[in-house]
């Protein structure tokens, strides 16, 4: 049985970050999930990360550049913690001993609106 949906005043307010990912190795959505969580826990700690309400909503693969594999994704976080999540993701550096880079290219209030950055 599903829980009844909370009234709007009790719901969490979310923001959706559109991120651009450059990776030397090919990655899949599950890899990104673990990279995002690992980055936030490393930089902000377990206690702060519990506030972020992180979720990888969408994952898109793009045509590979000659130097790296290119992806974009939409990541959900809680409204008041955007700066914390952004800075944590910006500090992602290595994945499986190969270079990776994540940078936020857009910020929106809905998934639909964040798709304009894809």
């Amino acid at each position, binding site marked *: 049985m599903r829980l009844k949906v909370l009234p709007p005043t009790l719901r969490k307010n979310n923001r959706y970050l559109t991120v651009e990912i450059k990776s030397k190795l090919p990655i899949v959505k599950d890899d990104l999930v673990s990279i995002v969580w690992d980055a936030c826990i490393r930089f902000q700690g377990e206690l702060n990360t519990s506030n972020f309400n992180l979720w990888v909503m969408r994952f898109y693969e793009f045509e590979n550049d000659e130097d*790296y594999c290119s992806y974009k994704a939409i990541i959900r976080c809680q409204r008041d913690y955007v*700066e914390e999540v*952004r800075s944590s993701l*910006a500090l992602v*550096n290595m994945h499986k001993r190969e270079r990776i880079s994540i*940078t936020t290219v857009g910020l929106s209030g809905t998934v639909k609106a964040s798709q304009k950055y894809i």
Partner: protein
Amino acid sequence: MFFDLNIKGNSFENNLKLAIEASKYGWNHINFSYNQDDYSNALEFKNDLIGELNERIALDYTLEIKSNNINEIRKITNKFRSKSSCISVVGGDLKVNRATLENVKIDVLSRPYLRRYDSGINHVLAKEAVNNNVAIELCFRDVLRSYLTHRSKIISNFKDIYTLYRKYGFPLILSSRAESVYDIKTTQDFTAFFKQTGLSDEEIAKSFGDASNILEFNANRSNMILTGVRRIDDAS
């Protein structure tokens, strides 16, 4: 306006790639840094690079002096002063930190905390930086490419420098020191990181202003008669 005075310069193709990426991520002006040995060679393709970018992003070169010999630093500074829009010295050694901050011809002391257990700056050096208008540069890449305890120590050094910055008000500049496309971030990510380490929005904006002031001051350096006195062109 977003200024990055320290992106590591390389070949023409690599610089072009980095400049295009930086313009895509919202940077308005970047400086490629070269050490004293490569600087003259790099000047040869500077105009081609500017032409290729076609005003997409403003760019210039920084001379990055890397030496532990104080006399050598002084000689290189005098040699390149008129040819360079920005001269920075890589810090870390206490003697180098002091000699750099006492030299009015040098613009930037880059990474005074490098390979040290402390920030490399104290109240005496902070006052020298203010008197001689030498900026202190913090690099994002030092945090990006380190991890765990080492990363924590670098951020702790940043915080020590912020404390002195708030008390003495020396010019502080923030730069990425990107070496590849993996190191370049959007301007919002860059400012978000420094905000997390303890700088306020105003302080970050002022740091970009300080970088702009260095370039503007050096563009007019030949017209400077005394500190605060500049010859202006009254024909215009």
